[in-house]
């Protein structure tokens, strides 16, 4: 049993988004966090102090631990933001405002160019 079977979900066709440059399957209606969890990804932020990985913690938009960059827009709460086809999702470094050149050039920078 998986959650989709449990709830008898019959979502529309899946679509592709990218996470740090690699394609990830997404279901319509899911949040960015749900899509990443389903793909086995549990962290998408690196803290601005110690550079530690973070992902979902509270899951309801209160803790801001799941901040992520989506389509070049930093500090989006992955647990709240629904995915749309073609979304470019990138691991967020620090403040998300691209300070120290530590961006690895995958999600974030591509997204900026795509804007």
């Amino acid at each position, binding site marked *: 049993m998986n959650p989709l079977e449990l709830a008898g979900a019959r979502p529309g066709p899946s679509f592709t988004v990218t996470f740090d440059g690699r394609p990830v399957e997404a279901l319509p209606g899911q949040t960015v966090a749900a899509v990443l969890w389903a793909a086995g990804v549990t962290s998408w932020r690196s803290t*601005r102090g110690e550079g530690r990985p973070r992902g979902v913690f509270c899951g309801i938009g209160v803790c801001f631990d799941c901040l992520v960059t989506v389509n070049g827009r930093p500090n989006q709460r992955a647990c709240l933001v629904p995915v749309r086809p073609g979304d470019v999702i990138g691991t967020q470094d620090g*403040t998300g405002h691209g*300070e120290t050149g530590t961006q690895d050039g995958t999600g974030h920078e591509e997204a900026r160019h795509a804007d």
Partner: protein
Amino acid sequence: MNESLTCDVVVVGAGVVGAATALYAARAGLDTVVVDRGPVAGGTTGAGEGNLLVSDKEPGPELELALLSARLWAALAREGLGEAVEYETKGGVVVAGTDRALAGLEKLAAEQRAAGVEAVPVPPDRLPDLEPYLAPGLAGGMHYPQDAQVMPALAAAHLLRASKARVLTGREVTGILRGPGGAVRGVRTGRGDLHAPAVVNAAGTWGGEVAARAGVSLPVLPRRGFVLVTEPLPPRIRHKVYAADYVADVASDSAALQTSPVVEGTPAGPVLIGASRERVGFDRSLSLPAVRALAAGATGLFPFLAGVRAMRTYAGFRPYLPDHLPAIGPDPRAPGLFHACGHEGAGIGLATGTGQLIAQVLTGRTPDLDLGPFRPDRFTEEAA
């Protein structure tokens, strides 16, 4: 726990002014006790931005005190306190939006230079070198390299620690002890008397209440200010940046809401946005008009801030006296009582100079500055 003790001087108030007073008093050899009804930095210090400014002061006694204080802050930083209190010699940039405002700014700067302030004119095309994210189209500005910053709560805590004074927090002064002839003999607290021949009123916005407990009047009143704090950002705003009309607001006597944008980055990342001024008593509740005006002013100076999120806002109360100068020095109406309060929005910056002057008069030395303009009883005559 009932704790009575005897010492040379009791400092009432564990904010930055009390802390600096304790430091210089202890260094002058006085056995010093600091008492506060709340925690360290629990009042205006904890709500301050930590400005050590010379740029916003017109020539006169306050500017002299600011220059003395700036030298003392720099000396403390050199002694090794700099990192602990996040001392930053970031400098100030004052900008003018119109030629008229620029002319006013240049006139003020010329007078300040004569008083010993460094003020470097910045033509409009050079402003981006100092502040790349400033709005275009400004008429010009002035760079004040002497403006600096500390983290106020840490400053109070570390000055207290460096003073090695005994610090009694959570203990309210309920009365001032007076001896024969009215001389001050210490303070009464909820948990015992603190005996000392000298008491320093460094209670900031609440300095009027402490004075009243000694039977003297000191018309300290609160002037509310809000600060907006943004999400953490990479260093983008390098100086303390404000508009030329800020100086006029500081000196204004109006009770109504005044806002002029004062914008600066912090080492921790968030940008701080001040400064509103209103006289509304001790009302701490949120005023959306005030914070909206702050946001409008800040985004006017730095357009990129429009897309940046404000995470919080908080209010503090600046302690002001009718002539906008602090009360520093002995109170002839109550021998043994000294005042060190009423610094309005400049208490962090002026704390070191104030503490030094008080320590000097406590030990019978000639103070570095003439205390005449700061006389605590200067308002009595007016009232009479």
